[in-house]
């Protein structure tokens, strides 16, 4: 009793001590564990692998970056960034109406059910969901079956025959990779948009209509700009998660690599840790540039 009282008194008399106790652990975690390993990554990327001995040469050079900027590696980076961009765009388009409905119209039970429906997939293992998509999209899977029953196999075939995105079946095509990415990251887009829309007072939308704006104009000039920070927040999730993932393209894609797979291969079997490190810097650079553009567009003004 007495001990606790003197403790609270100490904290009362030294507010900075309390602050230190509160902020210390997270700062150590973020500062040492996260930033430290990030720094280690950057340093590693300036080492290089001796092709003859297979040993990492701990000398600063740009050899690894020279290797990174070869055509095949740039191809991997472009493919990944392209996929991340398409997934993000599609997620925003699919998520917005649902988030809008959840924020503006759904009340009570309906809202709880919808929130649960969005969140529930996150409770089950990511791997289970990815493998279910493999079953759904496989040649003998439910999607093929459905097209067959609708006598529309020709449509599926013509889609699969498309260059770049097609393949022998949906489960081994870029379309399949895209569908699985869109599915697993969708909640991360819905929730921030919903949160942003919840914060828009309905009187602003009424005021816009009152001042003569038709619903479409209100959406373009008021709703969308005010929800934009939520869209950007969501896109940061979907974009960066897609950039770093190696399981979905490995499970559902064709054999062309994504950045995550390249990192996995280089730091694992190939033992080329410097190149793996250099690869991980690509998503970080892209995200940095993306955030800078978003900031210039005013995405964070309303925060």
């Amino acid at each position, binding site marked *: 009793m007495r001990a606790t009282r003197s403790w609270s008194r100490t904290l009362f008399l030294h507010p900075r001590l309390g602050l230190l106790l509160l902020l210390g652990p997270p700062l150590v975690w973020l500062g040492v564990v996260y930033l430290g390993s990030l720094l280690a990554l950057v340093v590693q990327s300036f080492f290089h692998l001796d092709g003859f001995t297979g040993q990492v040469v701990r000398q600063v050079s740009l050899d690894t970056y020279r290797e990174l900027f070869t055509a095949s590696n740039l191809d991997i980076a472009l493919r990944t960034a392209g996929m991340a961009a398409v997934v993000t765009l599609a997620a925003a388009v699919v998520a917005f109406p649902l988030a809008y409905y959840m924020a503006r119209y759904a009340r009570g039970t309906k809202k709880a059910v919808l929130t649960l429906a969005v969140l529930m997939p996150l409770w089950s293992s990511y791997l289970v969901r990815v493998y279910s998509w493999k079953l759904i999209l496989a040649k003998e899977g439910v999607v093929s079956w459905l097209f067959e029953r609708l006598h529309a196999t020709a449509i599926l075939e013509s889609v699969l025959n498309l260059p770049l995105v097609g393949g022998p079946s949906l489960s081994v095509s870029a379309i399949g990779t895209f569908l699985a990415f869109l599915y697993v990251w969708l909640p991360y887009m819905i929730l921030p948009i919903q949160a942003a829309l919840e914060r828009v*007072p309905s*009187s*602003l939308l*009424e*005021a*816009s*209509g*009152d*001042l*003569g*704006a*038709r619903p479409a*104009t209100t959406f373009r*000039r*008021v709703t969308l*700009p*005010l929800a934009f920070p939520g869209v950007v927040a969501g896109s940061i999730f979907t974009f960066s998660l897609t950039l770093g993932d190696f399981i979905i393209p490995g499970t559902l894609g064709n054999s062309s690599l994504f950045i995550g797979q390249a990192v996995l291969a280089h730091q694992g079997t190939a033992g080329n840790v410097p190149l793996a490190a250099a690869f991980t810097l690509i998503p970080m650079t892209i995200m940095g540039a993306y955030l800078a553009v978003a900031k210039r567009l*005013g995405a964070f*003004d*309303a925060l």
Partner: protein
Amino acid sequence: MGASQPVPAVRFIDVRRHFGDVKAVDGVTLDIADGEFFSMLGPSGSGKTTCLRLIAGFERPTSGTLELHGIPAAGLPPYERDVNTVFQDYALFPHMTVAENVAYGLTVRKVPRPERERRVAEVLDLVRLPDVGRRRPAALSGGQRQRVALARALVNRPRVLLLDEPLGALDLKLRRQMQTELKAIQQQVGITFVYVTHDQEEALAMSDRLGVFAQGRLEQVGTPVEVYENPATPFVADFVGLSNSVEGEAARAMTGSASPFTLRPEKLRLLGIDAPAEGTRVVDGLVVDAVYLGMHTKYVVEIAGGGTLTVMETHRDASTRAAVGTQVRLGWRPEHERPTGRLS
């Protein structure tokens, strides 16, 4: 309506708006004349704001007819009504500058830029905010935001301006100042103002006419003097200003008859216990409470017959202050008694 009579700006004909079991507006019939400053006065939940939202088009009547300048408004969405609203929370767009906010109605109606800029500058002058156009609403004080909201509505030159407790968030002094300004602006621009408030002093001070709302119905419509001096119901007597409602034994003790009436506290005079009753009625009582309010003192006096009366005594004669527990005589002129048919 005769041919010679002007068409009212707003006409409610037995309008109802029910939300499930809640009868927010329950049979309102009302004409608001063109160019009039009309206040809707009532406690919260009395239906006054719903009436305003019906005029704006944010709500649609469950039944009844609403006409704007003689045209039924049933099929008109808000963006097709020649009506603008000043919202209680101002509803300024946070992502736009003040000038963009004010210009919004003109922008969406595709008014050419030179005219738009001229009208925005004009209206910002009118509300005495010429230098804040480039700022964001968040950088303004409450009073300034209120003016911007007013400017944003006025710039469209609507035929009817709706104001939903626009001064509710301001401090008392600023509120008094804005009341005067609003009234002056209304006279200058000459458009119909429909003003929702729960502040009876505000309604009395600004309105040409006012309507008192209670439980979704209109209790009384009239000029401020009519409503204050001749309240139609005990509710109006009590809500607009303070009032003593007297009935039963207390009424008999005061007038000799049991018929109920209301009497304004400022019409009662506090007299010495042996004061003569010349031309006035009197009743004796005991002071049970005395609250000093600066300009006047509020006494609560227990009278014979069981009731209590509230008395407002101005401090013109500082010597008349009576302490709690003093026996006093109250005097008033019979013509200030307002007989009331139905007591709630």
